[in-house]
């Protein structure tokens, strides 16, 4: 595992070096890219809990990403127009405060994950993949056809939301904030993976009959993991919306679900640093190849095909050689 640790350290160092360079070289665009990578990594940390530890191939995590995004969009748009969200049965006002927005984003995406998970986890295998994909699409169409919050056009937020003690309009400060959130989420994922719950969840992925025989329900373990996973991805959605100061139905799109999954796979399923490595690689590719060709996704497709067919452990797995993931 020491080689794995060395690679994790290298990934981390690289991911910190870029924003520091961007800051001192005065390249705010690079900092925006780094922030984007960090937020996508956060979404992937969420998915990795369900996928890596629980073996749940959710192709609908954009649902939670989008709900987090709209939680931010709805709260902030009411705050910027000074109109209450509801005045009956009790008065609910909008807000521009990130901690409140994050809480709402996590609670709503967690509730959605509870409903979608409870339905989807009645099945397994291919059914589960197709059903999560379908529920994601349902929210996509709902967001398009619900006119109150911009429908297909989405919602713009004019000023980035605030965080106590920080000036989030300064790119470096917003980057540091998202990076801190990511670090906290990775720490949580690490602790969960080693906990009694993590042990039981990993066992349920490999030998569900055995888990039942020791008196634990795989369904409940998986649902718990799915809800935690959805909450983290929802939080990432709220941050993503804040980065762009814009939300639209594309945050619910199946492509986004695919992208989050690709990040997890490129980095290496079940690996703590996998999402970070995968997101950094994807954003870099997007930027570099996107500069070379308008059709850069052809190359992304070819790369992904190569990883799936020939390098099954993702970047970290391939570099670290054969060592045990899910550690």
């Amino acid at each position: 595992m020491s080689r794995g640790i060395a690679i994790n350290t290298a990934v981390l160092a690289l991911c910190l070096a870029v924003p520091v360079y961007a800051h001192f070289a005065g390249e705010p665009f690079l900092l925006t890219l780094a922030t984007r990578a960090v937020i996508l990594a956060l979404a992937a940390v969420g998915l990795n809990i369900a996928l890596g530890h629980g073996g749940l191939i959710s192709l609908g995590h954009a649902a939670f990403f989008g709900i987090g995004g709209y939680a931010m969009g709805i709260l902030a748009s009411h705050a910027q127009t000074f109109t209450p969200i509801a005045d009956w049965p009790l008065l609910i006002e909008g807000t521009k405060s990130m901690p409140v927005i994050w809480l709402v984003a996590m609670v709503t995406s967690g509730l959605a994950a509870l409903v979608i998970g409870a339905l989807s986890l009645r099945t397994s295998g291919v059914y589960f993949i197709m059903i999560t994909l379908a529920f994601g699409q349902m929210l996509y169409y709902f967001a398009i056809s619900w006119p109150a919050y911009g429908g297909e056009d989405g919602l713009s937020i004019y000023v980035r939301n605030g965080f106590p003690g920080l000036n989030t309009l300064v790119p470096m400060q917003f980057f540091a904030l998202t990076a801190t959130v990511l670090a906290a989420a990775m720490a949580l994922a690490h602790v969960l993976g080693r906990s009694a719950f993590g042990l039981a969840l990993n066992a349920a992925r490999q030998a569900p009959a055995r888990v039942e025989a020791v008196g634990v329900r795989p369904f409940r373990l998986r649902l718990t993991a799915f809800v935690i996973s959805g909450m983290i991805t929802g939080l990432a959605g709220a941050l993503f919306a804040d980065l762009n100061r814009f939300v639209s139905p594309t945050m619910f799109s199946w492509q986004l679900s695919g992208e989050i999954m690709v990040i997890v796979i490129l980095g290496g399923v079940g690996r703590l640093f996998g999402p970070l490595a995968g997101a950094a690689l994807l954003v870099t590719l997007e930027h570099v190849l996107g500069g070379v060709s308008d059709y850069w996704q052809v190359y992304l497709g070819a790369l992904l095909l190569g990883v799936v067919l020939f390098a099954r452990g993702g970047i970290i797995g391939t570099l670290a050689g054969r060592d045990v993931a899910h550690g």
Partner: protein
Amino acid sequence: MLLLIEQVLNGLQFGVMLFLMAAGLTLVFGVMGLINLAHGSLYMIGAFAAAAVAGATGSFLLALAASLAAAAAAGALIEVAVIRRLYDRDHLDQVLATFALILIFSEGTRWAFGSFPLYLDIPAWLSGPVSLPGGIEYSRYRLAIIGVGLAVALGLYLLITRTRLGIRIRAGEADREMIAALGIDISRLYTLVFALGAALAGLAGAMVGAIQSVQVGMGEPVLILAFVVIVIGGIGSVKGALVGAILVGLTDTLGGYLLPIAFGQVMEASSATAIGSALASMLIYILMAVVLILRPTGLYGARA
């Protein structure tokens, strides 16, 4: 009332088109155990091939033939080059590899044809309305789609129950080793089944391409609806795909038509339209959820 019947026919047409997509997916899953996200790309390829050939020759029938041929060829090609390496892999690998194929096909098509939509015209001999009994006027072309779809359904039924190929397909579903033991060339069978499913998707793309525009990304929304169809009908069952497709087609079309009217009875028109259509957009997924609660393996799926 006449409008309602027209909507029922529209729903039927939509359902039949979904069936063409779902049939290939469910066959490929039933026989090879593979989930193929790139099935929507084959639909798109069929539509583009038809639009290109119709543009060059002016013949709609040639265009349809081209859609079948192009999609079948593309299907056979990816089966040989990529898909057959995935049969023994887990579903995650299948999802990712076929997701990668979507990226390659979508961007490749954008590169070849540009980002602007193409249009495929309905030929003169199929355009205009046709009079049905009861004084109903209905699009001749849409009626033709319903006819073609039902004919394909019948053809598939005969193929699976009456022909040697069908026997092999059913044997392959039951047991891969058995079919190999019977001395049947299993990799050729797989390529054939995959190309057949691809051709059906391509045909659907071409026929719909004449009603809507032909553009990159047209396949995936239909693919996801086809997944809903399969979840409702049961994986691997062609009969389930037909019943599920008709159910989804009717639910979606009639929901979009009736819900705003229903809400209009109790609230003012503009918000009735808004709430009605937002709810209608979720209706088929709610249908799917209900089926999941009642029968987790679908209407015609094998029970666990």
